[in-house]
């Protein structure tokens, strides 16, 4: 499938003509739309929890796109996400974000909703939908933001997957909002990665991630 693109200025022109966006896409997107629109509807009926909507829809979006041969190259192209948001799934974006939300539709690269969902799942991917569900189900919208909005010079994908896996296996007492361990681990990583390459650390990536978490957990034990 050839993924269509929309520039930021094209999106602005489309939005300037209407208060409410309707789906308006090329025929190739029909199957994708039919499948995912129904899934979103079912999820939205089953829960009002924003995070649940995000990760459940995210997992389905990820699977459907993978089946349509969506690649990393496509996923890092904001114009592809803009087409998907403004032309294919504007109603789902509006439902999730209470109306026409420009940043989440096309305006802010790191906040385009569909893009953040895809990258959240990709950076948490544990081999299958079932395993990845276990990794993400205990989190919140805060984790999505912390993880996806720190792209810097590029995501070290294998590292983030290890961090997400370890975080999902942590005792829940460490995960209470007040301790904020997820955010602390990511910030420590940002500092350490300036001088240490994670995959060459003792024990490799697994050892590095253990080090990041233990830095805070051991301290709190005292």
């Amino acid at each position, binding site marked *: 499938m050839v993924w269509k693109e929309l520039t930021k200025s094209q999106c602005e022109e489309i939005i300037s003509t209407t208060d409410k966006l309707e789906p308006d896409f090329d025929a190739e997107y029909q199957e994708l739309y039919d499948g995912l629109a129904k899934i979103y509807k079912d999820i939205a009926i089953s829960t009002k929890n924003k995070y649940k909507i995000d990760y459940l829809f995210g997992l389905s979006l990820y699977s459907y796109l993978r089946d349509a041969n969506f*690649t990393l190259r496509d996923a890092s*192209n904001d114009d592809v996400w803009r087409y998907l948001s403004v032309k294919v799934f504007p109603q789902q974006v509006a439902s999730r974000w209470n109306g026409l939300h420009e940043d989440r539709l096309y305006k802010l690269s790191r906040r385009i909703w569909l893009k953040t969902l895809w*990258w959240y799942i990709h950076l948490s991917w544990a081999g299958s939908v079932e395993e990845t569900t276990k990794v993400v189900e205990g989190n919140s919208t805060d984790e999505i933001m912390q993880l996806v909005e720190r*792209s810097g010079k590029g995501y070290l994908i294998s590292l983030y997957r290890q961090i997400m896996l370890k975080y999902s296996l942590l005792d829940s007492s460490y995960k209470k909002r007040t301790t904020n361990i997820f955010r602390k681990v990511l910030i420590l990583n940002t500092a350490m990665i300036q001088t240490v*390459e994670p995959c060459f650390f003792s024990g490799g990536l697994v050892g590095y991630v253990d080090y990041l978490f233990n830095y805070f957990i051991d301290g709190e034990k005292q």
Partner: protein
Amino acid sequence: MSNSFVMYPTIDENLFDLMGITLNNVKFFFLNEEGEIEIDDIERENMSYQIVSTLTGYSPQKNELIIEVELEITDVRHLFGEEGVTNAFGVLGIALHWYSVSSSQRGSCKIHEIHPMDKKVLVNYRKKINASEFRGVVDFNFSIYLESMKPNFLDEFYCNTPGTIFGQFLPFKLIFDGRGSMFPITVESRPNAPLWRVLMEFGDICNETFTSEYLQICLNSAHPQFQIINEGLSIKKSPLLIEIISSALVIIVDEIKSDQNDWENILSGNYQEGSIAAAIHYFLTTFEWDVSSLNKLSYSIRNTLNEKIGR
């Protein structure tokens, strides 16, 4: 580039020169049904490689790419001991790193080990890049890092954290798409509108990146003259595109200069790497653009582009 202050020896310019590190060769191959084919259709400018035409049949979407590098270090003994970064029990590694903001990815791989008894190192390494993995620009560089060491009570000042990078060097870029790294250019269709326009959507030039998210030249594919630029859309082949980019740069520099704070930040180097301010500073200092008047600015920009690209 790290701004952190470290308490252990690292590779400074002197040590780098003593070692004699050179990148002898960078070659590109791709795989198709017939096997491996060398891509010789590469435009090279300084250490920036652009895969330009598809005459060889290479497609970033469909084909795996292989980058072959040959790295040479004349004398690695300088790395060990008093003037070096580790002791006689240390083992070092050479790594290849890549970063791509446009592809949202980064990674590293080990390409060689350096032992205390080594003298000269010659590494020939092939890095495979999967089809449809990267887009835009990928930055590469090499580093020497600590693989392992046995601390000795006499030399506690050496770093003993495996994975620590002692120095990064020999950067090079690979450009997959786009028309070179000079400027973000996009294409849109606007009937009855002019051939081009500049979109400036920046607010914080010291942090916002020099990418199409914040500023871009939009070329209008619906304009009758678009075809003149569109043949290959390579800057070298289009004098019209050079003129458009020159004019756009004048507009942008003038806009940025009108904010005193921003201008001072640019001149004093007070900005993030990769930001709009960083790019403007690079242009100003490398090409010595004359900003004393609009006319002089326009002339010096056109002069630069003409010298670098127009011939």
